[in-house]
């Protein structure tokens, strides 16, 4: 874009840098010079001093210096700031001119060279006459210089050269052209920079010195000018603090100027410049709040300074530029690290700039519409100036330098204004507005303002509409429309839709036109009724392939073009089928689809209602309504179209709810599946013309309906009573899917059993199946057993069988599937006993599943219905009895260990814990090889019936043979009980109870006694003690019998003897009982001399301690007893 009148001049926007001119360098043909120049200006990093270098020829003409004014007394300034001034000091008047000259100290022709150099310096000096610019000389030398003071010739010749050239020593430099060129150059430019700063410092002092000559009445403009110049020089000097100070005072002074219509533009232009500089410096000093405050102040001061009413657009243009350039500054500062926030970011300034650009456009249209402008301005053009540029910023071309209140020539003034207005007409306003808006959009996107962004995009769309770029307009509007729709700002949506409708009308886009029209006619639109009616009629025209009427406020020429486009579209048969997705908008017809129930039995027809309601002002005819279901086979049953039998209802009256009912019979294979409505299509228009498919996905509903349904459900509003067969729209809820479930079984399943089950028993459950159907139930299948899906361990420990003859084992399954029962006639009954064996306790769920098929006829369709009935029952399993096992000595004393080859007793106690009587059929002892029965063990509990809590005991006499491996414990074996519940029809089961292991010990000496079972008073009682040596050694035994009151005895009272290994010693005693009753036998004490720890007490346990002594009998007694 070419710079316009309002763009800020580039010399204002750049960063001022000290200007240093380099002469005497031939950068084109001399490689050394080229290298020096490159070192100055190529790849300048930010840490180098800010200087702008320029190579100029030695005889360059610098701008002439005007003769200095000695008095301001009769001087009247013509303007505030000359347009050429900034550029002059940035690029034309150097702060320092540097002359490069190739000269070594040991030059042979020194004199000649020195003279040539002096001449060159003089030429430059002459050209700079009147300026304070200093000249410096740099000698390019081939040799590396010696350290200062060592080279006598050098210092001598340097002095001579300085004299010849009239130079101060500080302005003579030597540049050895050696390896370290860049290093030397950096040192050089630092020196230059210092000189430049001195120059600008002097310039500032020079400008300041004018001040005393000025007076407030005639030189007001100069006050501003001088402050600006001081500030600008300070910037060149890189003294930004002072620059800011002087810009600020310049800003204050510019507003003190007397403003009138002829100079208001100049004042505003300069105010804008100075404001720009201040804001820029504030951002540079990292005081963004100061910048913002200054800008606000600036806008507040200038907002009302509109100036000439005929040129009001100029003020808007200027304002727009102010905001835009501040936005640019702000944005630049952000790029350099400033953080902005949501409520204070450049977007607001761009937005405001766009706002003024819109204002400018509006005013331009208003002011520049006069017919005399259309012919263009008659020559001479009042806007032409002799030099093609203005002398002062912000002045009028036809009266430059004019500073009084009234224009010098009213005629000229009028022509000038007309010329400006004519020029304004050519400005591409919309382009400017769109560019600013898109800048703002980018900013608001960054600072999380989605709605602001949307609003600006709408404005952009509208601007595109005004520039007749309808496609872009539509794209933008369509993009933001859905945000307004989902947030339910209907007024805004309506406004956007109206613009979009106009765009689509002017482009003859059938699909968009229909979609926007449908929404504008519907309930989301806040258009008045007559507008809706107009749009609806247009929609019908489009459906009939006619050309719709123009939208209001359209350009007549565009309407003519659109008319032609529409006719063309109709002829081409393009876009004859249009699809509109209802869930992306709020169309004028609402739809709700519902299955009457959330589930249907297979033998009942599925019923589906479609409710439609039109929100538009006129009745809507449609040609077809079809429902798509997840199983497409049913679609044929859910369709009404024109021409079918019930077609009289294909017209929707505004505001009424219309219902369309469909029914169909579900298929057998859909049992257990969901049928969903995938979509509802309403076809408007005829296929021969143009048709619109209005499609609702799922069970109806559009963008707005979810919220409406929610509100309706919350509402307490009383519903109006509606006539018969009419429903209130709000009460209809969507039911978009239904389950097809199997027919209700008419069969009874009864379970007969007596819980709880006992573990390991064959638990009998009688299943009674009775058909309650009216016809034959075919193919009845029974599945019974453990319900799947429980703990996996239960499957391992549960077994079922139908065979009640014997106990089942692990090979039987937990669930018996599909037991064929055959057909069941009506009322027929079948009984099946099921035997369950649970090997662990706990509760289990058992399933009894009866399935059968039926033939049924529904609405003339024969279908096969599969029915099934499930019964579940939870059965607890408990243990039937507990078995306690004890080891005892033959004296019924408890044993915690047994001795090898010493008989002992094994006692079992069976304690019934079953709630039902238990029948013990038999028991058996299965002994381990480490045990042997003393005699043939016999079952002692055969056919015993135990009630709850009763117990049965058995006793077996066993011995342990010596363990072959000398183990310390002995396995006992198993105890097997055959039992069943005390009823006849269950098989007997055997429970195996493992017997505990018992500690086994050997004893060195075993003693047992032979004695009669009783004695008689005063009758001899012979007792023989057997003492066995069970060790491999000869044992010496000391044995004594202690005296007893109850007995006299004969035999060895105390004896010591030896027993050979494995041998036995018998001791015979004759006891003579003295008293009757239970008497303690005389105590036998035995001691082994080799094994003193073997106590008498241990041996005592093997011996009987007491005996029953009968009283002395009479002889006759026996005879009398025998007689009796």
């Amino acid at each position, binding site marked *: 874009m070419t710079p316009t009148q309002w763009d800020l001049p580039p010399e204002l926007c750049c960063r001022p840098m000290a200007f240093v001119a380099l002469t005497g360098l031939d950068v084109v043909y001399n490689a050394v010079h080229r290298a020096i120049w490159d070192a100055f200006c190529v790849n300048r990093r930010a840490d180098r001093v800010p200087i702008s270098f320029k190579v100029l020829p030695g005889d360059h003409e610098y701008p002439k210096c005007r003769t200095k004014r000695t008095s301001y007394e009769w001087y009247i300034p013509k303007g505030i700031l000359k347009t050429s001034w900034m550029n002059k000091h940035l690029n034309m008047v150097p702060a320092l001119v540097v002359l490069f000259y190739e000269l070594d100290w040991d030059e042979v022709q020194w004199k000649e060279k020195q003279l040539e150099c002096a001449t060159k310096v003089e030429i430059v000096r002459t050209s700079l006459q009147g300026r304070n610019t200093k000249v410096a000389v740099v000698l390019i030398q081939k040799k590396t210089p010696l350290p200062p003071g060592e080279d006598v010739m050098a210092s001598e010749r340097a002095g001579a050269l300085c004299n010849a050239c009239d130079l101060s020593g500080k302005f003579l430099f030597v540049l050895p052209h050696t390896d370290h060129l860049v290093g030397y150059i950096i040192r050089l430019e630092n020196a230059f920079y210092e000189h430049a700063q001195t120059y600008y410092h002097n310039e500032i002092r020079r400008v300041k010195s004018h001040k005393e000559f000025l007076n407030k009445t005639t030189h007001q403009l100069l006050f501003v000018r001088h402050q600006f110049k001081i500030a600008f020089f300070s910037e060149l000097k890189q003294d930004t603090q002072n620059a800011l100070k002087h810009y600020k005072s310049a800003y204050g002074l510019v507003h003190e100027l007397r403003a009138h219509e002829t100079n208001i533009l100049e004042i505003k232009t300069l105010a804008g410049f100075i404001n720009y500089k201040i804001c820029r410096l504030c951002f540079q000093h990292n005081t963004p709040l100061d910048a913002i405050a200054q800008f606000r102040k600036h806008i507040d001061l200038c907002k009302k300074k509109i100036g000439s009413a005929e040129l009001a657009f100029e003020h808007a243009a200027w304002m727009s530029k102010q905001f835009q350039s501040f936005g640019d500054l702000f944005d630049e500062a952000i790029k350099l690290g400033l953080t902005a926030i949501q*409520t204070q970011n450049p977007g607001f300034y761009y937005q405001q700039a766009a706002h003024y650009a819109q204002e400018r456009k509006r005013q331009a249209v208003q002011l520049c519409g006069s017919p005399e402008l259309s012919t263009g301005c008659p020559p001479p053009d009042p806007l032409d100036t002799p030099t093609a540029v203005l002398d002062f910023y912000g002045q009028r071309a036809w009266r430059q330098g004019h500073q009084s209140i009234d224009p010098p020539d009213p005629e000229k003034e009028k022509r000038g204004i007309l010329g400006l207005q004519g020029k304004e007409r050519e400005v591409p306003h919309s382009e400017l507005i769109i560019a600013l808006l898109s800048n703002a959009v980018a900013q608001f996107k960054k600072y999380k303002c989605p709605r602001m962004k949307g609003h600006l995009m709408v404005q952009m769309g509208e601007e595109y509409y005004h520039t007749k770029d309808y496609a872009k307009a539509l794209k933008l509007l369509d993009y933001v429309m859905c945000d307004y729709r989902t947030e*339910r*700002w209907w*007024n*805004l949506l309506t406004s956007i839709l109206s613009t979009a409708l106009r765009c689509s009308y002017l482009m003859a886009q059938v699909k968009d036109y229909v979609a926007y029209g449908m929404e504008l006619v519907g309930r989301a639109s806040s258009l008045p009724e007559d507008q809706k009616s107009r749009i609806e009629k247009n929609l019908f025209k489009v459906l009939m392939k006619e050309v719709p009427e123009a939208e209001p406020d359209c350009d007549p020429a565009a309407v003519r073009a659109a008319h032609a486009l529409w006719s063309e579209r109709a002829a081409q048969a393009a876009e004859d089928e249009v699809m509109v997705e209802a869930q992306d908008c709020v169309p004028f017809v609402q739809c709700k689809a519902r299955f009457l129930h959330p589930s249907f039995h297979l033998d009942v027809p599925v019923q589906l209602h479609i409710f439609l309601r039109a929100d538009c002002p006129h009745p809507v005819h449609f040609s077809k309504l079809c429902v798509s279901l997840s199983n497409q086979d049913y679609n044929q049953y859910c369709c009404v179209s024109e021409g079918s039998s019930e077609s009289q209802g294909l017209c929707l009256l505004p505001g009424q709810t219309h219902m369309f009912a469909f029914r169909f019979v579900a298929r057998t294979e859909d049992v257990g599946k969901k049928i969903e409505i995938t979509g509802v299509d309403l076809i408007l228009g005829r296929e021969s013309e143009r048709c619109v498919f209005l499609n609702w996905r799922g069970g109806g509903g559009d963008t707005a309906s979810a919220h409406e349904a929610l*509100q309706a459900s919350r509402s*307490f509003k009383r519903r109006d009573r509606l006539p018969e067969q009419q429903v209130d729209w709000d009460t209809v809820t969507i039911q978009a899917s239904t389950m097809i479930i199997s027919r209700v079984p008419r069969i009874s399943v009864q379970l007969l059993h007596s819980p709880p089950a006992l573990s390991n028993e064959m638990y009998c459950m009688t299943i009674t199946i009775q058909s309650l159907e009216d016809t034959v139930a075919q193919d009845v299948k029974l599945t019974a057993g453990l319900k799947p899906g429980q703990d996996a361990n239960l499957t391992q420990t549960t077994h079922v069988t139908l065979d009640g003859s014997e106990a089942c084992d692990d090979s039987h399954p937990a669930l018996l599937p599909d037991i064929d029962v055959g057909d069941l006639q009506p009322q027929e009954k079948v009984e099946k006993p099921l035997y369950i064996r649970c090997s662990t306790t706990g509760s289990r769920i058992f399933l009894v599943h009866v399935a059968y098929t039926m033939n049924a006829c529904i609405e003339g369709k024969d279908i096969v219905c599969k029915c099934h009935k499930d019964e579940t029952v939870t059965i607890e399993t408990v243990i039937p009895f507990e078995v306690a096992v004890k080891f005892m000595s033959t004296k019924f004393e408890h044993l915690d260990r047994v001795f090898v080859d010493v008989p002992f007793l094994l006692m079992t106690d069976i304690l019934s814990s079953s709630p039902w009587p238990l029948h013990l059929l038999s028991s058996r002892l299965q002994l381990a090889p480490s045990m042997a029965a003393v005699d043939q063990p016999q079952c002692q509990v055969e056919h015993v019936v135990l009630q709850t809590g009763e117990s049965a005991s058995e006793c077996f006499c066993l011995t342990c043979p010596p363990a072959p491996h000398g183990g310390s414990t002995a396995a006992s074996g198993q105890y097997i009980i055959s039992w069943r519940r005390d009823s006849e029809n269950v098989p007997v089961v055997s429970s195996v109870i493992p017997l505990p292991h018992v500690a086994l010990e050997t004893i060195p000496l075993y003693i047992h006694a032979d004695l009669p079972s009783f004695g008689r008073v005063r009758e001899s009682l012979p007792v023989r003690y057997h003492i066995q040596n069970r060790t491999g050694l000869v044992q010496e035994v000391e044995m004594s019998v202690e005296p007893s009151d109850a007995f006299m005895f004969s035999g060895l009272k105390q004896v010591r003897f030896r027993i050979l290994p494995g041998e036995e010693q018998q001791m015979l005693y004759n006891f003579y009982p003295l008293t009757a009753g239970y008497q303690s036998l005389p105590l036998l004490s035995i001691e082994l001399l080799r094994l003193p720890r073997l106590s008498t007490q241990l041996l005592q346990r093997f011996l009987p301690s007491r005996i029953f002594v009968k009283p002395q009998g009479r002889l006759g007694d026996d005879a009398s007893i025998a007689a009796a």
Partner: protein
Amino acid sequence: MAVCIAVVAKENYPLYIRSVPSENELKFHYTVHTSLDVVEEKVSAVGKVLVDQRELYLGLLYPTEDYKVYGYVTNSKVKFVIVVESSNTSLRDNEIRSMFRKLHNSFTDVMCNPFYNPGDLIQSKAFDSVVSSMMVQAC
């Protein structure tokens, strides 16, 4: 006095918007709608700290060249927005606060009406007159 007063539902759709009839109504709709950006940002920023002690008054949302937009959020996340002209310097923060308080009280009355269904557009005459009392009188 306000030039536009709006009540916006928790779901950010307008429950009530009144603006001075002299100006473009649509412009105020956009102003209120765009101010929701700032309201949401402020509410979510505060929401993280202390929900209970949150101040309902959000203060100046954002200044435009011509208008100042103030916001207020009830505990049930219903938003009130008041737009005043930038040139109207007589209104201090305190006055704006009391306007919001008045509006909130009147809104509470509307909510207490058993015939009002929360979420529906506000059509109460009492609320209307409270709003009217706070609006710039069109002359």
